[in-house]
């Protein structure tokens, strides 16, 4: 960050605004980490955005690709990045030089919403560097909650670690390995920081001798003849052998494939280090992926309230509305998390203000009565603050998406119609909309992949399994990803899944791909 320190400090008139806005926001109940605003030129902004917000990340071509796209779309006037904010304590936020004062104010309000969310939403506890894992009760926090989230420093360390490996082992070699690790980046367990599961594999070496051996039924005096001692011994041995063979590694399917590879793959030291970096960073971004709708919705809710109630003056309101409308715009086939998020918070606020929840409300069938339902509870504000702490996108949609909201917001599902060769609206039914949304949000719309066996077929092969939930994997990608697994595991690897309803195993042995029918 220091390289920006000289020329990116906020000008005085914006520092004054920042102080004023922070005061107002605190007054309305927002609770955020200290925020450091910096002012960037558009190319610096594109650079920082390309690096996912961290200017000193490890070198990799995909950041360059990201940059090219951002830069081009800025040059063509298609889009610009207004703001960026980093989950760090203190949080860093970047303003774009050349934006109007109204826009800068809007961005500041929006950023404070985000930082409040970073500090208070339970998912983000997983990014506390000083927490004792697992965090079994994310709500239990010290009275003065001031966690260590110096991720900017951490990412800079990652950057220099990988740069060092590149110096020593060659750019191409390290970059190729980074590519492979990135292929596996999403094979982690998003709930690991909160799950009480023991980190170490439990070793059950308990007594397992005294089990009944199957015997033929015989009268007592015939026992010796029908089940001779040798037979019983043989059966016992067979049982023990079977058990031994069954004792798999891992003992139960493991979702954190990256951790499994770190602990078990025959990696060189630098490779292990690279994989560790990729895994750490993947975990850092999990909470943001888990709460995209909630986070953007919350920030939008607050920028809109702050701007229209306190911050903007009368001359700015049109400009504000214009900028806000751009953020909230919807287009056919596009899901705008800002729009849905903010509307859902408002919907919740209104429901809890008017008492539109609970058994009585649910049981009421009278449309007219429902329409005029107002118990004047005034609990809305309290409720949405609670929601922002305790939910993530999946539970947010699952619990608060209502049929009324779907109609109000004109929600529909769409899909590709093979017959007409185009995307079409499929349904406006509440259930369909909710199902589709939840499907896409669950595990970030990624398939569930687990390690089941590190010694498959007793050949030291790695077996992964895809829990088939109705959608097939994309073949070409799956093959290439499997190659990446093999290059890390350094032995053949397989993945069981379903293809057109049939259970199959995709296998890659280091040179050739095969697909064979599979029976567990």
């Amino acid at each position: 960050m220091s390289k920006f320190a000289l020329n990116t400090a906020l000008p005085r008139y914006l520092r004054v605004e920042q102080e004023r806005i922070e005061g107002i926001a605190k007054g309305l109940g927002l609770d955020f980490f200290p925020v450091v605003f910096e002012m960037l030129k558009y190319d610096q902004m594109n650079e920082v955005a390309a690096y996912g917000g961290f200017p000193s990340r490890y070198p990799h071509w995909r950041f360059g690709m990201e940059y090219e796209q951002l830069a081009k779309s800025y040059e063509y006037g298609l889009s610009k990045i207004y703001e960026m904010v980093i989950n760090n304590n203190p949080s860093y936020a970047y303003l774009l030089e050349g934006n109007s004062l109204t826009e800068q104010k809007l961005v500041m309000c929006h950023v404070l919403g985000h930082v409040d969310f970073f500090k208070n939403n339970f998912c983000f506890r997983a990014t506390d560097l000083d927490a004792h894992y697992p965090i079994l009760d994310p709500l239990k926090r010290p009275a003065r909650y001031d966690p260590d989230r110096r991720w900017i420093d951490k990412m800079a360390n990652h950057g220099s670690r990988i740069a060092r490996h590149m110096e020593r082992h060659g750019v191409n070699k390290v970059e190729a390995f980074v590519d492979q690790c990135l292929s596996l980046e999403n094979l982690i367990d998003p709930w690991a920081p909160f799950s009480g599961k023991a980190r170490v594999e439990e070793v059950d070496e308990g007594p397992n001798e005294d089990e009944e051996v199957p015997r033929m039924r015989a009268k007592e005096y015939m026992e010796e003849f029908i089940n001779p001692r040798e037979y019983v011994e043989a059966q016992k041995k067979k049982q023990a052998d079977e058990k031994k063979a069954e004792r798999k590694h891992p003992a139960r399917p493991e979702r954190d494939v990256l951790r499994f590879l770190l602990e078990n793959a025959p990696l060189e030291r630098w490779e292990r280090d690279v994989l560790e970096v990729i895994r750490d960073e993947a975990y850092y971004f999990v909470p943001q992926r888990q709460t995209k709708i909630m986070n953007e919705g919350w920030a939008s809710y607050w920028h809109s309230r702050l701007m229209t109630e306190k911050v903007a003056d009368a001359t700015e309101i049109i400009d504000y509305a214009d900028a806000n409308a751009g953020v909230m715009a919807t287009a056919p086939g596009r899901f705008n998390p800002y729009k849905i998020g903010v509307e859902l918070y408002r919907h919740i606020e209104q429901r809890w203000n008017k008492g539109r929840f609970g058994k009585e409300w649910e049981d009421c069938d009278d449309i007219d009565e429902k329409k005029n339902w107002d118990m004047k509870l005034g609990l809305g504000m309290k409720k949405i603050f609670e929601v922002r702490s305790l939910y993530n996108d999946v539970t947010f949609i699952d619990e608060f998406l209502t049929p009324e909201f779907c109609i109000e917001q004109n929600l529909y599902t769409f899909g590709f119609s093979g017959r007409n060769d185009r995307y079409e609206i499929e349904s406006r039914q509440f259930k369909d909309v909710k199902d589709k949304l939840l499907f896409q949000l669950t595990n970030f719309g990624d398939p569930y992949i687990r390690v089941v066996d590190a010694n498959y077929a007793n050949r030291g092969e790695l077996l992964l399994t895809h829990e088939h939930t109705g959608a097939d994997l994309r073949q070409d990608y799956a093959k290439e990803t499997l190659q990446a697994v093999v290059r890390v595991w350094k032995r053949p690897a397989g993945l069981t899944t379903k293809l057109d309803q049939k259970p199959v195993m995709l296998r890659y042995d280091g040179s050739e791909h095969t697909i064979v029918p599979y029976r567990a």
Partner: protein
Amino acid sequence: MKIDQDHGRFRQIVRGKVRQNLRKYISTGELVGRKGKDVVSIPIPQIDIPRFRFGDKQTGGVAQGNGDPGDPLGGGEEGDGQGQAGKDAGDHVLEVDITLDELADILGEELELPNIEDRGKNKISNAHDRYSGIRRVGPESLRHFKRTYREALRRMISTGSYKPDRPIVVPVPDDKRYRSWKTIHEPIANAVIIYMMDVSGSMGDEQKEIVRIESFWIDAWLSKQYKGLESRFIIHDAVAREVDRETFFHTRESGGTMISSAYKLCAQMIASDYPPGEWNIYPFHFSDGDNWSMDDTLACVELMKKEILPFANMFAYGQVESPYGSGQFIKDLREQFKADERVTTSEIRDKDAIVGSIKDFLGKGK
């Protein structure tokens, strides 16, 4: 900026991809229509990190707006509507801009084209000035402030008149320093391509498309080799006339074919506009090989020998196969110029043959 390094790596990868797919790009003519002023926008599929993810069939999503079930999603391109909640858009083809220069490089690498040896014409040169040093005299407008200040400071410190608590530095005329420049003469190689094409009835759209694609790549390669490349266009059936690029590729005439008419015009052009001592001259002729009569073919040969070949770097004839043409002309040319290095002929059966024919034409390094 730090990103430059990563951006450079990305461009390198893109280059590799373009090179891999170059033959495909050439034979489909995909890039011809994507040419901007100096750049070509190239669609590259899948520069992407592969991951385990769901197949396309099951994509789709939730959005908001008007319309009934069964209605198409309005606006936007097809395949544009795959944005998924909480996730970036699914598939997209990456469009990268590559300068024509770079593209020519890639073409050269992939087809192993030799660089062209300039015929040693350094007569035309371009003079420009470049600041290259510092001197003690010069116009005030070129005074080098920093150097002047430094000199003055040095003088004042050494004479002891500099006071750190009152750091005022006053330069005297001796302290003044000025930028100086050198005039650099850069030889420029000039080249002209004279495209000739038969537009008689037997040349169909497909044949012309082939010529169009081929000329795109020839242009790209030769502009890489020469600064200041000119193109001239001649179309002919029984008579020839000069046209602009647009007309060249889109005219369709009926009627017979007299190739000599085009060669005659070409010879005139060379004689009047392009003194061979200063220009590298490249006549390219495309036809389906049907000429009106043997007499005319002989006239062509005569023209080439006397008025074109002595002045040109090479003469290229590309014969595009058409269902109507007899294809006789290439045989005649080959017979006449068997041993002549300056004449290059190439048969282009279909679009897939374009790559080979580019190599035929440009592979000699002339």
